[in-house]
């Protein structure tokens, strides 16, 4: 797994993190290409099902990026998202995946630097954790999936 490149899905709120990603681009900041961005109208729009399905389809890490506390365009979508992320983390543990593969982060639209930093940190963290057992199983090795299950 030396050449392991994690697949990371980032659900980014249109009003903050998605704009922050744009800002990172304008500022010529680099961040890992492992992060696949999905724009959502609010982090509160991200359902537990979206998060779980991302892992089921082979994502090694997922994060939801919403507005800073108190700054949600829809009042409290980010707070709801954080609670949802917490409950899905517990569900992942029940399934047998590490809850740390899922994160909730907050930032403002002007924080291009923070966007790049979060993307880099998340990629590094997941790279250290190794591939998700589901990713391995889907990649074709039932035996490999078994191996990963014993990690």
């Amino acid at each position: 797994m030396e050449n392991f490149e994690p697949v990371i899905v980032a659900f980014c709120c249109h009003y903050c993190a998605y704009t922050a990603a744009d800002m990172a681009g304008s500022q010529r900041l680099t961040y890992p290409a492992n992060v696949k961005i999905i724009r959502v109208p609010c982090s509160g729009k991200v359902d537990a099902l979206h998060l779980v399905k991302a892992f089921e389809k082979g994502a090694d890490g997922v994060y939801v990026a919403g507005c800073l506390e108190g700054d949600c365009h829809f009042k409290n979508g980010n707070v709801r998202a954080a609670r949802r992320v917490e409950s899905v983390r517990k569900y992942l543990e029940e399934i047998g995946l590490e809850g740390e593969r899922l994160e909730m982060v907050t930032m403002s639209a002007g924080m291009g630097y923070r966007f790049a930093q979060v993307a880099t940190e998340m990629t590094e963290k997941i790279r250290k954790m190794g591939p998700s057992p589901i990713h391995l199983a889907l990649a074709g090795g039932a035996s490999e999936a078994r191996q990963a299950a014993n990690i």
Partner: protein
Amino acid sequence: MITAERKPLEELMEYIKPFKRILLVGCNECVTVCAAGGRKEVGLLASGLHMAVLKSGATIEIREHTLERQCDPEYVEELVPMIDGVEAVMSMACGCGVQEIARRFKNKPVFPAVNTKFMGASERQGVWSERCQGCGDCLLGMTGGICPIARCAKQLMNGPCGGSTGGHCEIGDDTDCAWALIWERLKALGQIERYVEITPAKDWRPGGGSGPRKIIREDLAE
């Protein structure tokens, strides 16, 4: 509504271990409202089970379907085209739905995915509490609309026990004393004379004490 909670994944994994293709069936009624077994929960559980099985090194195909109502034969009939293609069924409905599927499809193993809890009401978002035990002889008209059968831990019929303190039940501070609630309500309604009336020992036969219950409406039954 009838409330329910999903069983632990570990228990569900034991049920489905021998099978390679299962049908996971939800219900659009009570279990959807209490977020235990509607379409969304079916999707979440299917994903969770799929991942847990993949992680164990095996494979499984989980088909998903949510019925309008799982306790009515008309709706359960919708499963006919799907049932032959699967080895077992897992139901996310209450116990009534699970049994209706078992009755209709005699040769298919059926497993419950939720624990059916109680007949309750929603206190606030995400919180449900017990309100009715289906005693078959409703006395809410005498008790100001608050049920001492479902909401008093001892099901007392004539006022609170000695464990009632400051409006709370002795089983815990988060449980109201039903009789304290009844007293306050009767006072507010100006009906405290009802509190003084002695209620005789309850006949539990309509509440299931004389075996499984049935309702037959002559004008509707065929």
